[in-house]
């Protein structure tokens, strides 16, 4: 996997800014929500044309194999623009799982997205399963144990789309015994578990990028508001209590950036990953909550952009492990390291 050069990174960020400024805004987000659209194929194709779908895929299947750092950089821009589309859940995560399979090639072109089962515990029988996204063709990846150890299964299912109150898109499927029996096996044995976990880790890291970009923009919107809005004869920015709150949010965001950078620099260090996602989830949640508070009553209206950020922070803070889950995992590894020493 080639390292992402600063030039490549800048090019990717510039093209992402340009595309999102043109093709996405709050009005689109509200339209998808109001019309109950959980998956927007037109926007998905736009992202594919920009090359984003192949970012994490090998060149052999039409990807650009730029690696996780590129995906994190891209996700930061998506967070900044409050993009609700399930890029991480239905593209990045399955890309890691699919590798250089045929389905991966279809993923790169933007013809399909792939829904992936939430969680890291193998399915042992027929069940109702939550997916991170609802894709039109029903392409689905499951982690299952059909009696011979863990396997990653690829199948097509009828997905019921679910638009959640937090603005995030997801889906639900009923997996039957026949579905399980007839599924294509992508990977089996300990390798399957390892791959699944690696994919979830990566998705968590990319989501940390999304949350960090989102938090930065939520703070920027709040700062703008504080500098314009006047009460008691002065701008809100003149009040020291609000100044310190803004500084604390800035400190949190800077810590999230540092944690993310450290995790990217040491891909094998799972403690760094857990710290990064825990921090990003906490910071994006705190920043957007405070941002709504700083906006006053306006912040609770659907019309103001800041609420969109709050909801997407709610969704992504939980996706691929909440703050608490990652913090606990960090503590477990930290204790194991201490016991070993």
């Amino acid at each position: 996997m080639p390292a992402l050069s600063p030039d490549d990174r800048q090019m990717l960020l510039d093209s992402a800014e340009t595309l999102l400024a043109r093709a996405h805004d709050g009005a689109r987000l509200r339209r998808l929500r109001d019309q109950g659209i959980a998956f927007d194929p037109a926007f998905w194709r736009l992202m594919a044309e920009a090359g984003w779908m192949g970012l994490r895929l090998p060149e052999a299947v039409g990807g650009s194999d730029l690696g996780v750092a590129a995906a994190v950089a891209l996700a930061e821009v998506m967070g900044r623009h409050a993009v609700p589309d399930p890029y991480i859940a239905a593209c990045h995560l399955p890309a890691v799982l699919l590798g250089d399979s045929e389905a991966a090639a279809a993923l790169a072109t933007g013809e399909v997205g792939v829904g992936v089962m939430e969680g890291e515990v193998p399915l042992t029988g027929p069940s109702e399963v939550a997916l991170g996204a609802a894709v039109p063709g029903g392409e689905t990846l499951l982690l299952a144990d059909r009696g011979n150890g863990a396997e990653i299964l690829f199948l097509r299912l009828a997905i019921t789309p679910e638009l959640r109150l937090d603005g995030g898109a997801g889906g639900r499927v009923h997996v039957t015994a026949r579905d399980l029996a007839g599924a294509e096996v992508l990977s089996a044995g300990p390798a399957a578990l390892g791959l699944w976990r690696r994919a979830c880790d990566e998705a968590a890291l990319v989501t940390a990028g999304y949350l960090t970009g989102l938090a930065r923009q939520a703070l920027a919107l709040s700062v703008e508001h504080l500098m314009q809005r006047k009460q008691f004869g002065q701008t809100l920015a003149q009040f020291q209590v609000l100044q310190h709150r803004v500084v604390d949010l800035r400190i949190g965001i800077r810590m999230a950036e540092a944690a993310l950078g450290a995790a990217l620099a040491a891909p094998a260090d799972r403690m760094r990953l857990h710290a990064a996602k825990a921090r990003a989830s906490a910071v994006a949640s705190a920043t957007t909550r405070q941002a709504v508070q700083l906006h006053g009553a306006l912040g609770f209206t659907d019309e103001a952009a800041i609420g969109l950020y709050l909801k997407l922070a709610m969704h992504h803070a939980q996706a691929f492990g909440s703050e608490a889950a990652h913090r606990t995992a960090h503590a477990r590894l930290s204790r194991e390291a201490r016991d070993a020493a």
Partner: protein
Amino acid sequence: MQPDRNAMSDADFAAELRAWLEAVYPPDWRDPLLRLRGRDAEWWYARQWQDGWRAPAWPREHGGLGLSVEKLILYHRVTEDFGIARTLDHGVKQVGPILVQYGTEAQRAACLRPILEGTQTWCQGYSEPGAGSDLAALRTRAEREGDSFRVNGQKIWTTQAEESTHLYFLARTSAAPKKQMGISLFLVRRNAPGITVRPIRNLLGEREFYEVFFDDLIVRADAVVGAVDQGWTVAKALLGHERFAQGSPALARHTYRLLCTMAGPLGAFDDPAFADRIARLGCELSDADALYAENCAGVASGADLGDSLPIAKLVAAELFQAMAECLQDLAAEAKARPGCGVPVAWIDEAARVYLMSRPYTIFGGTAEVQRNIMARSLLALRG
């Protein structure tokens, strides 16, 4: 002349420094919470000088090690990991860099070598009863009388004033429209007639800081560093690239280790509430480490660090306090369970750490003043 170690590999450099510390550093002093003073500190400065490990950031032509930024970062990392005690060492940390930048030949000749040898030690007279966070409000006056200045006024929070041989201080030399102007920086012998000091006992029971009184102290004009009335600018001259060290979470890490050590016999990791609190602190420490490492790398590459240095300093101080608070709560648990296996000495240590951590959000600009400063640029405020 001390040896030039910049050409060494990082590994050799670290190994040599570590081996030297193992060989000469008194084991009793391996405690990052300890601050050496008086004869102990002087012994350590002299030893550093004899063995060629003194003044890492000073340029070589002035007798320092002249370490590159990369080596300087490594120097701090190795000494921190070893757990050496802190020292005030205002001579090396403040006076030397100020003289290198603004001093006259005569001032450098009189001070730099003795500072390196550890025979000249410095204390700082900046704060005053009416000028703490608002340092520029200082009122100590130095009035010109021919070739000299007559100084009257009072300083406070001067650390280790009694045992220091010299004092550098700020005084007002002219009335100016802006309060930062009209201030000058002076160098003086601590035992000069007209200077008296009085200790102030702190919460730990130590007499480490002092009030300093000037009663018709006469200072020659050639003891002013830089131009008269330009002391505010001069005082801010530090070897900029060493500022990163303030953001090191070393004390937080030390306290975290104490926490984990005490948590063991108490079974605190199996108590969900404590476990979660320690987990939170562990993540915080990991992130503070990440920011510090990023700052070190940024300083080394000459990148614009923006507000990252003040953030790291604030985070390190507040995290040290949070760790100390958790440690104190563990100590309470240990007290409530006699026979649990936690030595009583650890309980006392927790109290010491708790008290010791308090001033970290006060000195060098309170956490609140630092937030004011950061807010100014975030919110584009004037002032």
